[in-house]
């Protein structure tokens, strides 16, 4: 399947949608309109929950905010629905920004619970504010007019709704394939990974959250002016979970899944309403929600992946062309070999009463490979985390390239030129090798939300793609750039992490136990790679406890034991040092 096939399928789908209102019955068109309106929310949730990993139960509240805002502007104050759209979108995005700033730093299920909380609070507000008609709602909302045509019938508003859905899908897929979209797709890998790439994770989360709320506000506006009457019911917590269900049924993480999920859920609900009375007379209203929730639970138990990813598995794989040569990305000024690059001065880190790192000082000079070694519990990993900003030192100072970074956030340290790898490999297994490495170029590229969505970023993208391919070739993984990262063996995954770090054009490469879990052949390959990087004048700091690996590779070694620096020197001197032997092997009796 090539790009041409995909375009052909998209055009065919658009044609089918355009012809539909001339073929279908009015009832079916109304149903289609609801599907379109729900799709918008579900697409937003696919982005938020599926891509970004933020489970929100509160999207219905955003739909409600926009619906009520537009109804207030148009029905109660007599202005145009288009002004209602502007007000609704601005208000919803404003509310989402405030809620996002307050809650998006919460972790895991705390965050989802907060969405339950504000979803409920906003939902209760609709029914209890005097000016919004309380539980009676707002009626006689005017229809949307395009020019002189008022979109009154369901066949008329159909084109507006599905036009918006098609545009949102188009822009959404563009966005996901851009710099910002890749950052969103990395969110599920955890904050440490995202921040280590120089990405401000919080801002990406906030952007994703506000985009989802924006889509919900479009949906709310369309809903208010299509049904011409609103009450608190369609925006309550129950609807919030229904939206979540739509995006999960369709396939969380797939924008198209949002549309498919909205269609499946809406049609299913409709047929449940049709057929339940036949099975259980008189109890259909109650059974509807039971049947519905039961289906959702069964779905979550047995088919969490969703429909679209399931279908995609059986479609032929997309064939993509290797990236063409492109103008290179700007490079940073590299330090001259021998110059002082990193200085750790009297670093101390405590966990309660335990001093994990105690008054440790050392220096790294440009162009050398320095290893920090020590037995288990020596404080190597803590030292490493302090260097990269994952932990803060309690005392002491860390200076990188002449700038103190002691109190900087991880993403700022990464931007300053420190690129790292992880002891437990952190890759995005469902992204290709190329895309994983392109994540590394984030801090070297500029394009934002609009450039990404409207494809104004093509030159920069081409450069980033080419840079990524060059780094893949540099580490020896250039032959299959479109393979999924999750399919690589562990040794190659570590090497892929190094390629990603190299794509950031770092001044200092920091490797956390790169040899852990590797087989002998893989270790030899890794050492070979690191030597070739040193030949390119790259500075490397390794935290490791594999002695054999370190001794044959590095220029200097710093030995830690029980949190303190034991000694420092060339490999041969360290090997014969009695204190080191004692720390590793126990004292000679």
């Amino acid at each position, binding site marked *: 399947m090539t790009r041409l096939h995909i375009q052909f399928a998209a055009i065919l789908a658009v044609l089918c949608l355009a012809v539909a209102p001339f073929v279908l019955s009015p009832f079916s068109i109304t149903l289609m309109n609801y599907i379109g309106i729900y799709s918008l929310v579900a697409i937003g949730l696919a982005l938020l929950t599926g891509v970004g990993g933020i489970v929100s139960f509160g999207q219905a509240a955003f739909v409600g905010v926009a619906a009520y805002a537009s109804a207030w502007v148009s029905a109660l104050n007599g202005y145009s629905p288009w002004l209602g759209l502007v007000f609704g979108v601005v208000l919803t995005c404003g509310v989402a920004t405030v809620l996002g700033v307050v809650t998006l730093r919460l972790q895991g299920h*705390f965050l989802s619970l*907060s969405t339950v*909380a*504000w979803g409920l609070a906003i939902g209760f507000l609709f029914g*209890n504010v005097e000016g919004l008609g309380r539980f009676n709602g707002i009626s006689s909302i005017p229809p949307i007019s395009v020019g002189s045509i008022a979109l009154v019938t369901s066949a008329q508003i159909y084109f507006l709704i599905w036009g918006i859905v098609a545009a949102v899908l188009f822009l959404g897929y563009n966005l996901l394939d851009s710099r910002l979209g890749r950052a969103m797709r990395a969110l599920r890998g955890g904050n440490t990974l995202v921040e280590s790439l120089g990405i401000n994770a919080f801002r990406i989360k906030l952007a994703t959250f506000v985009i989802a709320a924006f889509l919900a506000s479009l949906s709310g506006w369309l809903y208010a002016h299509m049904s011409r009457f609103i009450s608190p019911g369609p925006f309550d917590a129950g609807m919030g979970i229904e939206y979540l269900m739509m995006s999960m049924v369709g396939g969380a993480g797939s924008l198209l899944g949002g549309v498919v999920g909205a269609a499946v859920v809406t049609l299913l609900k409709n047929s449940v309403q049709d057929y339940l009375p036949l099975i259980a007379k008189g109890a259909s209203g*109650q*059974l509807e929600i039971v049947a519905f*929730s039961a289906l959702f639970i069964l779905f*979550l*138990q047995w088919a969490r992946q969703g429909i679209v990813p399931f279908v995609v598995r059986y479609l032929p794989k997309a064939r993509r062309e290797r990236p063409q040569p492109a103008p290179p990305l700007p490079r940073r000024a590299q330090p001259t070999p021998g110059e002082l690059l990193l200085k750790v001065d009297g670093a101390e880190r405590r966990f309660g009463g335990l001093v994990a790192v105690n008054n440790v000082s050392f220096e790294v000079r440009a162009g050398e490979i320095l290893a920090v070694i020590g037995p288990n519990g020596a404080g190597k990993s803590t030292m490493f985390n302090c260097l990269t900003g994952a932990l803060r030192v309690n005392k002491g100072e860390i200076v990188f390239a002449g700038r103190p970074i002691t109190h900087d956030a991880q993403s700022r340290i990464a931007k300053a030129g420190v690129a790292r790898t992880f002891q437990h490999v952190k890759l995005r297994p469902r992204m290709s090798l190329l895309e994983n490495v392109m994540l590394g170029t984030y801090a070297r590229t500029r394009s934002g939300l609009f450039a990404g969505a409207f494809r104004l970023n093509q030159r920069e993208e081409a450069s980033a793609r080419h840079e990524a391919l060059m780094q893949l070739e540099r580490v020896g993984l250039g032959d299959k750039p479109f393979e999924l990262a999750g399919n690589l063996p562990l040794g190659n995954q570590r090497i892929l992490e190094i390629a990603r770090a190299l794509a950031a054009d770092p001044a200092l490469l920091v490797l956390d136990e790169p040899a852990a879990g590797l087989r002998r052949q893989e270790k030899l390959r890794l050492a070979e790679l690191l030597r070739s990087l040193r030949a390119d004048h790259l500075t490397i700091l390794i935290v490791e406890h594999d002695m054999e690996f370190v001794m044959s590779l590095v220029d200097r070694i710093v030995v830690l034991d029980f949190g303190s620096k034991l000694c420092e020197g060339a490999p041969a001197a360290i090997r014969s040092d009695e204190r080191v032997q004692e720390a590793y092997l126990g004292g000679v009796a």
Partner: protein
Amino acid sequence: MTSDIAAILAIDGIATGAVYALVAIGTVLIFTVTRVIFIPFGDIAAFTALTLAALDAKRFPGTGALVVILACLATLIEIISLMRSGELRLLPRALSFYLLLPLAVVGAAWLVMRLDPPLAVRLVLALMLITPISPLLDRIVFRPIADGTVLLLLTVSVALHFALVGLGLLFFGPEGVRTEPLTSLSTEFAGVLISGQTMLIVIAALVFSGLLYLFFDFTLVGKSLRATAVNRTGSRLMGIRPARAGTIAYLLGSLMAGVSGILIAPVNTVFYDSGFLIGLKAFVGAIVGGMTSYPGAAIGAVGVGILESFASFESSALKDVIVFSLLIPILIWRSLASLHSEEEIEE
């Protein structure tokens, strides 16, 4: 607001809060042992009130039919899973636990009902009928995904709540109920009249929390539950079965929820869907305790009760808005206070 009114509001709030506290403790219990944030506990409390009201009206409550249906479902699922794992020799035990025991409870309740029992017996009957529901739901809904993420379990739990609301309407009807007070005594404390019902609620909350404390600290089963809460794999290696610990936690938790339902029924009119708000407010309390501390959860729940009481005096329409908005600062505080090891989200 005069100090008199403030005192009345405070007492009212403590009583409501004590009811939430019972549910909150149950929520924490389930969460620590099974990692499920069991939103439907509020529904269990509401169903208990509805069950008691039906018993008072000499009707056999819909709870009976609900338990029978759930028992059949759970048995079916258990048989299938036993067949799949080739452990059919465990079938008699499974049948007696998932089918015979719940049916026996319903049958016994049905027989006793014929005898027109006094209030105390009716209370016991209501609790007996309600306790099998959560463990059965656990078997049907949560056991197949016991190893899922907290978020998956939460999503399922929210969906389950909606299913229960629908079932509630089906089995109990749309009418609200208010049962007769358990006591008509009242006393005066510092110039403020305190009803016997309020006293009863607070005492019951204290007694049950105390019993739970004794259970956890002084019985082997209680200790095994605590061990499961701390480390599932570790406790499994020690011969504790997490599934069994989960069942016990659900039994205990639904007993607490049931008691709270009985206590709240004479004070508030309870509908089939009242449970959601009870459950969520208890849950706000549980979060104050970080979802791990029982005293923290109880204190938090009482705080929510008092806040709600004062909020409803200021603006009865917006009291729920106020209570749930408050959850957000609490969540932020908790999230900052608890040290997280970064949890990667499921692919």
